[in-house]
């Protein structure tokens, strides 16, 4: 008997709980040479803004022990190019298309959410409130509860699509932030985004990246992400999507057991371009071995 891997988030059905993490899977096309996108629960595309964005100067990545730091700086092609050049390819696949988005200020968040709402083939929006560059007030919305509240409320008002808010780990109480999203009508939260980090060249005494700091991702952050997901699951009723350092089915299962409704695979795509499908297969095998008929029986089964 083949177990059911189907999960629901908002009014969306996912054929399995494995999605790709924004910024690590391009616009789907890049990895379609390795993976049949039809097999995935969903594809979350690179963070999108109204207008194209240049991003930070190189070098933009540096490898650390079991992880990597990136300072991409949200480079992206902008809304129009996404709609005209990327969406036509993606819509051919039977998978959920989730657009991760951000703005330079709250008005831009609202405007892009409004525009995305009108695109038929976009199934859900993932609002990135964890922009690494915190120079303006609105860049702090992932860190300050009242800014977050206002932002989610206003974005919620312009879209009927499933709205996921992606949270930053850089707060004292991530569950509190998730609760705010729930109160303001978000359908789900996803966490965590990368963790601010640094690396220095001791000879030149400069950063190894083109900017002083970047964001840490990969297996190194998995235990932190898992704890954040567990705390959040206990605080909210809306689904929590777990992200951070998942490279194997075993990692993914840990997130599901603590209560994540779905998971996203990020840095693992770089290590193994077939990671997503291998993880789906591994989850399925585990359910068969454990004689679990429906993945929803496993989700949140953590024993304290």
């Amino acid at each position, binding site marked *: 008997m083949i177990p059911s891997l189907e999960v629901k988030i908002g009014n969306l059905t996912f054929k399995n709980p494995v999605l790709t993490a924004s910024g690590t899977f391009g616009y789907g096309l890049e990895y379609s040479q*390795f993976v049949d996108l039809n097999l995935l629960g969903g594809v979350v595309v690179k963070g999108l803004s109204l207008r194209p964005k240049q991003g930070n100067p190189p070098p933009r990545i540096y490898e650390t022990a079991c992880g990597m730091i990136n300072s991409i700086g949200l480079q992206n092609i902008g809304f129009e190019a996404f709609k005209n050049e990327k969406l036509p390819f993606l819509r051919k696949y039977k998978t959920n298309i989730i657009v991760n988005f951000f703005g330079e200020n709250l008005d831009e968040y609202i405007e892009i959410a409004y525009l995305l709402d009108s695109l038929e083939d976009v199934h859900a929006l993932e609002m990135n409130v964890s922009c690494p560059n915190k120079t303006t007030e609105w860049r702090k919305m992932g860190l300050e509860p009242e800014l977050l509240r206002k932002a989610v409320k206003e974005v919620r008002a312009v879209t009927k699509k499933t709205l996921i808010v992606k949270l930053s780990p850089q707060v004292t109480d991530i569950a509190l932030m998730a609760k705010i999203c729930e109160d303001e009508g978000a359908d789900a939260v996803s966490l965590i985004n990368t963790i601010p980090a640094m690396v220095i060249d001791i000879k030149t005494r400069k950063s190894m990246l083109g900017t002083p700091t970047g964001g840490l991702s990969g297996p190194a952050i998995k235990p932190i992400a898992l704890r954040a997901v567990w705390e959040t699951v206990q605080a909210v009723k809306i689904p929590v999507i777990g992200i951070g350092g998942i490279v194997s089915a075993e990692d993914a299962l840990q997130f599901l057991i603590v209560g994540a409704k779905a998971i996203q695979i990020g840095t693992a795509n770089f290590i193994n*371009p077939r990671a997503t499908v291998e993880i789906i297969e591994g989850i399925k095998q585990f359910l068969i071995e454990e004689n679990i008929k429906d993945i929803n029986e496993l989700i949140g089964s953590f024993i304290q």
Partner: protein
Amino acid sequence: MNKLFRAKIIKNEQLTKDIYLLCVESPDEIQSKPGQFCLLKLNQRLDPLLSRPFSIFDHVSGEIKFLYRVKGKGTRILSTFKKDDYITLSGPFGRWYPFPQGDFIVIAGGIGLASVYYLMKRFPKRAYLFYGVREEREILFYDELREITKEMYISTEMECPYTYKGIVTELVKEKCKNLSLPIYACGPMVMLKELKKVVKESQVCYVATEERMACGVGACLGCVIETKEGFKRVCTDGPVFDIRELLL
């Protein structure tokens, strides 16, 4: 939908103190062009995490070769692979050198030879090779290079009786005053910078560039380089660029 494969190692030979030649079996369906690269996975563990990019040094039926220099922990691990071990690789990726119509000039700086050897072999007896190394014992594949090139000039930074003493771009300046052939070059950034000064606006000059990579397929935007039209990805928009496009 299959550019990821496990390959058996035919040999991993040490050529100099820190340079190795890795030869692996390749499936028949893998096709490559000079200038392209592969990502080599160094182990099944999570440290080092990312695969490392290497140019295809040569590709003959059933066999792909890589020439690499041990730089850090990844390449050190690579140097410990033995005959009959298996290695996972993906590729070939990236843009290749636009094929030369007639004779052409090749400039290789040190390990940069790894990127241009395949091009010269593919178009034998048409390349004027300028090959720059630090010292005599770093000159690799002397006989083969003599065989496949039309003419070969070598420069060494240290004194050597048979070579030009100095950096390779100086040698190019001295020898190619009147040659207006297309140039193909690969070498360290300082060499490319020098080359940019030497090359006239009207001259065709393709260079292979490097930047740290994560995905190798254009998805992460990690490997960008600055061009006249903004940032471009070394892995998919390059690694081969027209030098006039680059802001070096």
